[in-house]
């Protein structure tokens, strides 16, 4: 795949079609994106961010990609936003039509379109930039709107669309796990829990009318089974009425990749989640350890689906674990996790989700030696796995993730002296798995539920 922007390629030639004319269709789709009626979901932050950036560069001072790349101009957050903004000014504003040179308006060419299509998949939309901007301009929302425009002209990474949202609607999960395989996995996990912990835990599946429906990121069963096991042990220890669900009973995958690139796909999946929860007649939908799934179901869904159409609460498994530890519903002994543990604030759980203290209370109760990464909480540095990046491997993209975001996280991790990094998001787990390997760090990662389960006193 030839170079169209930098040394990496997220989009295959089949998807990007770099030698075909797409500018006109892009502009048509962009025009629609600027209309309130057609694109109401983020119209206000989108248009204000396009119009009112003061070009002060404060965002760049905190952007992980820009800083770790050695302040390469192509990774400057304003440079990226300007790729869309210059087109916006040229075709959709009066000064841009009359005095393009003055206001930095530029014609869109096929080459610039190729470069933009790639650059919008270098930013994870961690919104660290938006947090520090004096005018609260949001480069992240501009990136997402650009991705939506590209999706409207059929340019989206297949990891997110063809093998992501579309697969999830077809199979009930993005991994393509059929019901019999899922039940085999559950049986295996029950055996594993008995083998490793010495007690039997029954994992309910497809129980109707349960109080809690726990939906994990389906990838966790395959790649991060310890999180799933840990969660099951915790639910069991708490003695609550809970269930998992299989793909036979709707969507059993918490993910919603539409959060990353498409309102249309996002809406389809949210509706499928809501249908699944309603059909099973559950009271609380519990989101497993997945960052964007929490954002989608706890926040983004609220103004998309009217309350009467979603008759259930949404909680993160972290919120439940925190509650149950504090009220003594589950008992934990921190001596059972003696190694030094640190915690990475996932962007979607922290800056975008507001959950800073819940995981900390949990980890301090369950681990003997808890340490902070520096910086943390709202200034946490994105690990680079988000936006689905953790599952994008084409065009040497892993190297990009490791050399930019990954480099900063490796330094933080080393400085903390921890030997375990607790993570509550699948994309973060995937990314840290690679970071630890790439930088040969003497660290392992663990799900928060995994650590809680280790500490359980039964």
């Amino acid at each position, binding site marked *: 795949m030839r170079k169209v922007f930098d040394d990496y390629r997220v989009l295959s030639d089949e998807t990007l079609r770099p030698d075909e004319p797409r500018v006109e269709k892009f502009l048509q789709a962009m025009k629609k994106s600027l209309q*309130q009626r057609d694109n*109401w*979901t*983020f*119209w*206000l*932050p989108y248009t*204000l*961010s396009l*119009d*009112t*950036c*003061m*070009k*002060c*560069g*404060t965002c*760049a*001072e*905190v952007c992980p990609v820009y800083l770790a790349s050695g*302040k390469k*101009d192509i990774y*400057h957050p*304003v*440079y990226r936003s*300007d790729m869309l903004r210059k087109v916006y000014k040229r075709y959709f504003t009066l*000064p841009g039509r009359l005095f393009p*040179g*003055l*206001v*930095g308006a530029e014609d869109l060419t096929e080459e610039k379109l190729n470069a933009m299509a790639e650059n919008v998949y270098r930013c994870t939309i961690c*919104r660290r930039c*938006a*947090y*520090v*901007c*004096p*005018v*609260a*301009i*949001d480069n992240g*929302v501009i990136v997402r709107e650009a991705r939506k425009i590209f999706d409207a002209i059929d340019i989206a990474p297949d990891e997110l669309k063809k093998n992501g949202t579309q697969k999830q609607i077809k199979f009930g999960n993005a991994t393509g796990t059929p019901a019999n395989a899922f039940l085999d996995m559950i049986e295996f996990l029950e055996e594993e829990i008995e083998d490793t912990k010495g007690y039997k835990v029954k994992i309910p599946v497809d129980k109707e009318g349960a109080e809690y429906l726990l939906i994990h990121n389906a990838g966790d069963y395959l790649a991060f089974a310890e999180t799933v096991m840990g969660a099951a042990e915790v639910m069991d220890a708490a003695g609550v009425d809970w269930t998992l669900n299989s793909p036979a009973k709707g969507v059993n995958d918490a993910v919603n990749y539409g959060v990353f690139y498409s309102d249309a796909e996002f809406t389809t999946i949210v509706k499928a989640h809501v249908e699944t929860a309603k059909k099973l007649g559950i009271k609380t939908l519990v989101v497993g350890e997945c960052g964007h799934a929490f954002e989608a179901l706890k*926040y*983004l869904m*609220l*103004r*998309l689906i009217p309350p009467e159409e979603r008759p259930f609460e949404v909680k993160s498994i972290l919120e439940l674990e925190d509650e149950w530890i504090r009220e003594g519903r589950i008992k934990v002994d921190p001596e059972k996790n003696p190694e030094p543990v640190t915690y990475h604030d996932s962007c979607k759980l*922290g*800056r*975008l*989700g*507001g959950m*800073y203290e819940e995981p900390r209370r949990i980890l301090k109760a369950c681990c003997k030696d808890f340490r902070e990464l520096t910086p943390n909480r*709202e200034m946490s540095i994105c690990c680079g796995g988000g936006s689905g990046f953790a599952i994008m491997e084409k065009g040497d993209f892993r190297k990009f993730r490791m050399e930019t975001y990954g480099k900063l996280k490796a330094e933080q991790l080393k400085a903390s002296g921890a030997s375990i990094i607790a993570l509550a998001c699948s994309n973060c787990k995937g990314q840290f798995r690679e970071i630890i390997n790439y930088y040969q760090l003497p660290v392992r990662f663990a799900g928060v539920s995994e650590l809680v389960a280790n500490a359980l006193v039964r």
Partner: protein
Amino acid sequence: MDFWQSFIGGFLPYIAVATLVFGLGYKVTCWLKAPVNLHWELFPYPHTLGGQLSELLAEVFTLRSLFHHNLKLWFPSLVMHWGIYAVVFWLFFLLVGAPVAIYLGVAGGILTLTGSCLLFLFRLFVPGLRQISTPVEYLNLLFIFLLALAALASGALGDFAFRNYFISLLTFKPHLPLPGSYLVFLLLLWLFMIYLPFTRMAHFAVKYFTYHKVKWGEVE
């Protein structure tokens, strides 16, 4: 001479004020009527009116974000913004008839002149800033610089009697003629007021929306 006196001294001021008020008013109305966006808050954020007010004031008067994350720009930007605030207070106290106005006016003019000059030079010589700048950013700063220069050079900012001209505008009987240098200052001032609503210098109004409708959520 007569034409310029009546044009700049007697006609443009009303055009300028009307454009500023209705221009900003129109934009603000559009934003107020915008569809409520999906939840897109950034945590933590202040939940009480008092909390929001104190963060707003801290940002407006100390440029806190720049101080914490972009220190090199903080001082020149603070100088320019304090200069602008002082000039705004100059106009208010001048209309009200308080003599402190002229001290605010002159100080404001000097600060604005210095601040805008420093920001212009930063933008020209700091590579990271220059790379992301377009001509209009330089133009805006130049405009502010020239306005401050004209204001100071004319002596208008330190002239308490200038008050009479502004009061006369309110009664629609402009007190003319004015000294030539005052007309230069006023011309730039009216043009600035006409220009402002259509540029990003209206960011003071935009901030209400980006903070109170998006980043800090909207009270349901």
